[in-house]
């Protein structure tokens, strides 16, 4: 019966989507912001997103950046909404955990910049995991 189910390897088609002009620009921006190699981010996106979400990524990215203005300061620094809702790189629970952790660090007396940096490291870790 497997002949009738026709599951197919979609990697090359997904790669075609992800290398168009706007997608490429977006991937470069995100990779530079998070601080991971582009190739790793591309593979991560290709493994986790379905093709329709991938087509829509640039529009969601622009909209997510616009929505950042309404978030709290910590969330804005971590780009929490952008990377969990607009572009679901990590789940919302995971992002909430990171945000809570950063807030805890700040309450325990760590300077703001260091705490945000620690949060970004946590985020990078959860992607490279």
């Amino acid at each position, binding site marked *: 019966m497997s002949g009738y189910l026709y599951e197919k390897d979609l990697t090359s*088609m997904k790669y075609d989507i992800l290398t168009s002009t706007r997608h490429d620009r977006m991937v470069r921006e995100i990779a530079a912001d998070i601080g991971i190699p582009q190739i790793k981010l591309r593979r991560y996106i290709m493994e986790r997103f*379905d093709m329709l979400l991938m087509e829509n990524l640039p529009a*969601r990215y622009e909209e997510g950046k616009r929505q950042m203005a309404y978030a709290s300061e910590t969330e804005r620094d971590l780009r929490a909404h952008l990377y969990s809702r607009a572009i679901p790189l990590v789940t919302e629970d995971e992002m909430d955990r990171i945000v809570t952790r950063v807030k805890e660090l700040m309450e325990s007396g760590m300077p703001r910049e260091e705490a945000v940096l620690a949060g970004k490291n946590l985020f990078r870790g959860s992607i490279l995991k």
Partner: protein
Amino acid sequence: MKRTVDVSIPVGPIHPCWKEPARVKCETKGEFVLSAEVELGYMKKGIERIMRGRPWQEVMFLAERVCGICSVIHNMVFIEALEGISSIPVPERAALLRVIVNELDRMQSHILANFSYCYTIEHETLAMYLLDVREKVMDELERITGARVTCAYIVPGGVRFDLRHEDALRLRANLAAIEDEIIRYTGMFENGPMIALRSKRIGILTKEDAREACAVGPTARASGMPESDRRLYHPTYQKLGFVPVSREEGDNFARIMMRFQEILQSIALIRRCLDTLPEGPVRGGGIPGAGEIAYSGEAPRGELSYFIRTDAAGRIVDIAIQTPSIMNIEACCHYMLKGVASLADVPSTFVSSDPCIACTER
């Protein structure tokens, strides 16, 4: 995507109700749809890749063939983007003729979308009535532009042909007939109890979700976002005093009614254009030059954006097209289909967002 349940029911790529191939894998619990995943790649032609490095004269025809249903708006947005780069003026008569042709195209596209929906919920009578009205609109389109589909009517600095006086009279007469029929069919759709059972409170898209998925066009306006209409920012439409309509329900019924309302609105716009059509030239001429621009227009399905970079010879160096269907199908599959009570509602909900896979994949 992560598996949440173990039953995944694929719908498509060949499905009796779908005009184009796409594969929606619905993760279900009983008949309840928990989430949907879409597999594309059946229509990917790589148009943006073909366009690069080609002269605008050639890309103009390729741009039209991104989508055959809404070909006029692709033509219009591409040409207006080129005009924006090189600041080519458009004669006033030509600008109004563009609006007339664009609105006729919007009407036939909306009628086709509503036909598909009625056909999907098996109301074949209303579907065939609508398809018959569509032929009248196509006649008008053909009389003005010379072709039914992909007519390449709009050129830099104007339009190809003038609207003759007798054609304008025929257009007016036909518009009156079309308006009567559309009002009648809108009533049939609005008051049909069976249609209401299949459409009301099914496939709901809330305003927050619509914003997050960047839904556009009638899909967004049915969820209460009238500001998403790009016609508000177009100078010719501003001159005509265009005001968008919207609804609040955000279900299948609202999306179809939205399109019926917009058809009537388009008829009013065309009438206003015919009333104010000044005498004068329709082709000013102009040669596109080097530059870069991001330009958007309102396609029948929503906001259509072109990002173009050209060189001095008018060749397209870089181009990216963002079609409305990308956002709308995404909103449909990842938000509307979530929580659809029965698998039988999946095709009708999918069709109600007016999917156009050819645009989505290009």
